[in-house]
């Protein structure tokens, strides 16, 4: 006897995705109200954005935007996107709408802050790229580790160690020597992390915290006790920007990507190299297999431990290079805890970039934008206290990680020590 059950599919199911769509709708409509009420109502005049400097080869006229009308339009678009979420939201539209909405809201904010004044947009974009450097490099570090199954939250410590060593050795041996030493110290901490979590199977989070605390304590001690006495040890030369011919003259893009110092070029090269390595080479395939299914890799004769050691150490060297940016790439001097949590924002950039170097670059530019915006806006004398502006990169991190990232697919073996049978 066979009886097939009658299937009814009428009931609407309130899935978590629907809930997310509705929350996104509420957020968007809230933003619309805020933009209309605060950024549009009491604002007069035009916002002038400078896109080039007078000395540039190809000058581009300034972008002049009437503030109030522009912001009302933004508010209307936000309201439309929000309403759309309620009517037929969900699916891929949720993340996209939220992303567009947040970007528009940021534009509205800039227009409001600049209304009646002039503001160098190209200068801010150039600063965006500069500020993105430690974030891209940190994110690539985290990605190289996680792709082989090692969660690296010691990026912060590795950056700080690179910054400190760059300043110290750079002061004694000069910039190139400092840079090499910074890369070396990053690699050393990568090796230590690998030893702790691969060989000694220490909890990966705790190992990372230990490295962070150790580096913070040691560098702070030396900088307050030794550098305070012997200032010549903390006075390293800085790598200057150099323009790449022709490319550097392109308006807006030129100064952003092609008139920078070795750290910016280095991080762009690292994005290309890391992408090639992870996704187009034999070694990259093996590395990813170790992060996804170490036992499978082991049964095929791939040495899981060695793969993890090599990748985590190499990743540490990248972080060391990124750390040197703080000293050799900008001020030439080490300050206590000068990385200020950039290593953790880099982790967020890694997640936001979905474990892909190009994605990490995009994500780092978003965070770098928030960072440079707070710096430049302080000059515009907005009514917002500078302490609040200084929170911008961290707020951007929270919004992005909580709202826009959604579900990122992490390497399956991340965080777990591999025990060979």
């Amino acid at each position: 006897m066979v009886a097939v059950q009658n299937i009814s599919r009428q009931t609407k199911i309130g899935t978590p995705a629907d809930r997310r769509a509705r929350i996104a709708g509420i957020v968007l409509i809230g933003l619309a109200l805020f933009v209309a009420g605060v950024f549009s109502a009491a604002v007069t005049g035009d916002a002038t954005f400078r896109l080039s400097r007078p000395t540039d080869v190809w000058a581009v006229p300034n972008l002049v935007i009437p503030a109030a009308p522009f912001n009302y339009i933004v508010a209307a678009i936000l309201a439309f996107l929000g309403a759309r979420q309620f009517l037929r939201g969900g699916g891929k539209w949720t993340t996209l709408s939220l992303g567009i909405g947040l970007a528009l809201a940021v534009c509205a904010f800039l227009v409001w802050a600049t209304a009646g004044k002039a503001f160098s947009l190209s200068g801010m974009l150039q600063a965006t790229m500069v500020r993105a450097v430690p974030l891209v490099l940190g994110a690539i570090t985290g990605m190289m580790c996680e792709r082989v199954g090692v969660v690296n939250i010691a990026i912060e410590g590795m950056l700080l160690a690179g910054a400190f060593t760059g300043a110290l050795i750079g002061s004694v041996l000069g910039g190139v020597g400092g840079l090499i030493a910074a890369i070396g110290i990053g690699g050393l901490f990568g090796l230590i992390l690998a030893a702790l979590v691969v060989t000694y199977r220490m909890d990966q989070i705790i190992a990372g915290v230990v490295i962070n605390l150790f580096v913070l304590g040691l560098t702070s001690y030396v900088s307050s006790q030794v550098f305070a006495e012997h200032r010549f040890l903390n006075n390293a030369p800085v790598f200057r920007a150099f323009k790449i011919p022709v490319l550097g003259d392109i308006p807006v893009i030129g100064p952003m990507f092609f008139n920078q110092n070795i750290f910016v070029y280095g991080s762009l090269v690292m994005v290309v190299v890391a992408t090639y390595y992870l996704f187009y080479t034999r070694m990259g395939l093996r590395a990813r297999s170790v992060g996804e299914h170490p036992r499978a890799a082991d049964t095929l004769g791939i040495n899981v431990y060695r793969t993890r050691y090599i990748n985590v150490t190499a990743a540490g060297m990248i972080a060391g290079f990124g750390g040197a940016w703080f000293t050799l790439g900008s001020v030439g001097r080490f300050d206590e805890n000068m990385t200020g949590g950039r290593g953790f924002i880099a982790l967020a950039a890694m997640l936001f970039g979905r474990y892909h170097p190009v994605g990490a670059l995009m994500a780092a530019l978003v965070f770098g934008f928030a960072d440079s915006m707070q710096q430049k806006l302080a000059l515009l004398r907005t009514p917002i206290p500078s302490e609040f502006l200084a929170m911008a990169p961290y707020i951007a991190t929270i919004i992005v990680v909580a709202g826009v990232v959604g579900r990122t697919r992490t390497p399956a073996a991340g965080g777990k020590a591999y025990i060979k049978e």
Partner: protein
Amino acid sequence: MDVELRGITKRFGPIVANAEIDLDIRAGEVLGLLGENGAGKSTLMNVLCGLYTPDEGNIIIDGKPVTFDGPGAAIAAGIGMVHQHFMLVPVFTVAENAILGIEPTKQVDYLDLAAARQQVNEIGDRYGLQVDPDARIEDLPVGTQQRVEIIKVLVRSADVLILDEPTAVLTPQEVEEFFGIVRSLRDAGKAIVFITHKLDEILEISDRITVLRGGRVTGYGDPKTLTEQRLAEMMVGRPVRFDVDKAPYNPGDLLLEVRDLTVLRANDEIAADHVSLEVRSGEIVGIAGVQGNGQSALIEAITGLHRPVDGTIIFDGQDITNVSVRARHAMGMAHIPEDRQRTGIIGDFTVAENMALNSYYDERYAKGMSIVWPAVATHAADYVADFDVRTPSVHAKASQLSGGNQQKLVVARELSRDTKLLIAAQPTRGLDVGSVEYIHGRVVAARDEGDGVLIMSSELDEILALSDRILVMFKGRIVAEFDASKQPVDRNAVGLAMAGSAPRAAA
């Protein structure tokens, strides 16, 4: 290629997993390796494929002794293993998995995926193992994943293929197809080792049989002359009963009524889709289906571990859809969960503590706010004796028990009180024949005493042996129902329904 194992001994601390085992593997032959869990089959094969180094003994390939210092060396020597738990990277494509470890490359270490695709297609054409080389493993059905495992071994030009419990994850129809592949490989001159604990399969596919028990070879045989009964004796060491004695089918009142139950997985996919079913007292309702078709989610919803998004569950006349697990338990629901290691027991707790886990608060074990440990121990000792749990003491850690005894511990805990409804998910997965016999007896006893029983299993034989009514789940829905109370159900018809084919109108 012929492989001989001579006097292989492997110890793990004081435990001897393999003791002086001799084994002959010959080209163009299927060697059936039979044994219960813990008999040492997997250890022996891990020695052969280079994962373990034997403490004593030799591996001889075509007359020459060899030693393997790792899996890579065994692969290079032409020995390939298809593991019971697939060794495939789920996010990689078929081609990437096939060539992992022996990748074709161009300059600058560039991965030559075009060459990889071509290799996969060539192997597929030669042995009848067609798979799309660009499909992602996680999107493929289990049967196809297994083909990829075999392709992976063949890409490494293996001459000896070790298949470890290859049919455990397949539907009956897929098993037939799989046997076809095994035969074509054998006819192509490959040597095949087929490891299983299923007697009918080993008799069907093998050319020779070797039986292991307790780490030793306990018998050799010719499948043409051996019977299942004789094989089982060699495997267990005593005569085994296969059929289950049941009292006549006499269903009573309606106990459990599930209406339009819909359950989501963590990723918002629908796991169970408007499922309705009934269980009466005094009957065993079996849910058949290939793993991953929503049975687990259904069971978790009924037992209160997972909140359904739609539908109602009525137990003993009360709506329990949103009632706590403890309340369900107090109403007389017993639950043998699917994964005893993860949800059935706490390995670091003692046998006695595990025994009290579900009712530590009732008057047997507690006085006010404190647990009376002596009472816990004495009750546990009673239940251990009642349910034949073999443990050195009630104070031994549960993780030290064998799988069968862990499962008996779970059964003892769940049934050692007044129950009305027993829900058993995969109650005998991975257990030896003796434990299966015992647990089946207990399940039937519960039914004969008037309990309702809902049993979920991906082992069709288990469902057929126990159930009074059989429901088949496919892609979250109940697609067929069979009445097994009067006459045996056509195994093939159930198998087809499990594979999602439209059920035929059977008698």
